[in-house]
């Protein structure tokens, strides 16, 4: 096992260009909008796309190694389970490829299926599995070989809530003991905040922010992260302003006072959100506002209606927009 610090600075032409380091044992969540380059980054580390730059794991230069010697465990976004092999054989594949005996591999594979609650489906081909069942097989397949680096590309997609919760637990336990580096791509704030030690935010192929989950959640630098953690984000010159939707006041007339923190625009949507009603308003930028159902009815809010939004300066956190 080559546990070690992962120091990467990788470029995939036209897709991603990102530098970061990750300590052994660390779980790094990779978040960002669609097309930000998350999968490309993982594939570059795994060696599946041509990348330039550097990627060192401890003393090893990953870029100089062919895919199979990089010892990564990759959960593909599209699963890519071998269609001609059973669930069991899919999971056992990596072990057998690394030289374990058939009996041994199958025992380990069966154990993983068991852990993921699909032991009874061991004999099925991928085509005979439901989407969520197949996803579990895909995760098991990547973990079973005991890789040095774990690359999980949206591992929880298609899983039902209980399985997601169970798997998050299972994976959390696994990752806590895991001596290597793990990269977890996700669109879910909970994953990023609960499973990760640090969060790497990609935007347009570049690193927009790196930091502990709490910091990223509190001071998001991209509108994507702000939306993910449910904050409004407004740029004011070199300063960013973040504030929660329930700190936004909605009114039909221009609010009084000299605050610069006011915006105007038509209501785009209006939907229940917990006990509140959540508005999305097409101001520049789009802003969220929560208010009580009673207030919403009273104001006669309907999609399309122009409203004013304002917020108290005290509810706003301000921080520089530096990179």
């Amino acid at each position, binding site marked *: 096992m080559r546990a070690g610090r992962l120091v990467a600075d990788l470029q995939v032409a036209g897709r991603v260009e990102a530098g970061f380091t990750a300590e052994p044992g660390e779980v790094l969540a990779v978040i960002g909008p669609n097309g930000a380059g998350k999968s490309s980054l993982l594939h570059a580390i795994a060696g599946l796309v041509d990348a330039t730059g550097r990627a060192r794991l401890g003393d090893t230069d990953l870029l100089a190694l062919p*895919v199979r010697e990089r010892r990564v465990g990759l959960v593909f976004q599209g699963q890519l389970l071998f269609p001609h092999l059973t669930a069991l054989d899919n999971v056992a594949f*990596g072990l057998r490829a690394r030289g374990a005996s058939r009996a041994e591999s199958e025992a380990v594979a069966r154990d993983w299926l068991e852990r993921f609650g699909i032991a009874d489906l061991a004999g099925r081909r991928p085509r005979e599995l439901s989407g969520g069942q197949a996803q579990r097989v895909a995760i098991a397949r990547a973990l079973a070989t005991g890789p040095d680096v774990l690359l999980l590309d949206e591992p929880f997609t298609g899983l039902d809530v209980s399985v997601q919760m169970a798997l998050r637990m299972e994976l959390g336990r696994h990752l806590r003991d895991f001596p290597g580096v793990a990269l977890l791509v996700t669109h879910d704030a909970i994953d990023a905040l609960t499973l990760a030690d640090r969060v790497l935010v990609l935007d347009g192929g570049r690193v927009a922010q790196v930091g502990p989950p709490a910091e990223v959640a509190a001071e998001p630098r991209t509108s994507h992260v702000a939306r993910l953690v449910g904050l409004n984000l407004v740029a004011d010159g070199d300063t960013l302003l973040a504030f929660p939707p329930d700190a936004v006041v909605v009114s039909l007339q221009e609010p009084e006072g000299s605050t610069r923190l006011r915006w105007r625009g038509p209501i785009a949507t209006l939907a229940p959100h917990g006990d509140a009603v959540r508005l999305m308003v097409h101001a520049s930028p789009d802003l969220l506002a929560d208010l009580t159902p009673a207030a919403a009815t009273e104001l006669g809010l309907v999609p399309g209606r122009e409203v004013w939004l304002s917020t108290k300066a005290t509810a706003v956190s301000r921080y520089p927009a530096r990179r």
Partner: protein
Amino acid sequence: MRDRLGRPPALLVLPAVLATLLLLVPLVAMVASTSWQDLPGHLTSRTALDALRISLVTSTVAIAACLLLGLPLAWLLARVDFRGRGALRALVTVPLVLPPVVAGVALRSAFGRTGLVGEPLLAWTGFAFPFTTWGVVLAHVFVSMPFVVIAIEGALRSADPRYDAAAATLGATRWTTFRRVTVPLALPGVVAGTVLGWARSLGEFGATITFNGNYPGTTQTMPTLIYVTRQSDQDAALSLSLLMLLVSIGVLIALRDHWLGTP
């Protein structure tokens, strides 16, 4: 997923029926004009049985060799980027267009007693291919290999290469990947290539006779026996062909069942 997609359209069924008729009618006409009562006679004739045995053995050995050598070549052409790939692919196609007799001549220039490779081979080992059963196998391999390689390469290229990548991330060497992922995924194409190659080799006549001649018990295959028989006894030749057809259909059906489960 079958007829749920709608009835097969006339636009496709009609040509398919025509194609079937085109293949069927000559066979029926031939079988109709063949004397079945000769068949048992051939089954006990030493010459016919010898020729049948040699045909089956040489084509089977030849197709085994074709797969052993040709499957890797097809894989290389389909999956590995290297300089000269286009040229190599063209080279593989060339023997296809050689009329069989010319193929025999080419083989002779290479492996004959005075051939490029044949002469040193004879000098060192005392062995020469022509007029031996090994020579027949060599001729079969030469004419069938292109069929095997091209058909299989086509199938490999239709298969999704991302599974190969997935196997590599799981630590599989290219060899393991080839054996456990690439080939199984393209299996129908590999079987098709094998069938084509085997059949081509079973029906092979021109190259074999040019390179190896025709001697009962060593180099006389069914097609050469049929050819020489035809010169004196047309009916016997046809009924020998029929024998060969029946045997090869039997083998093909058995193979398919064995390899592909239900046909």
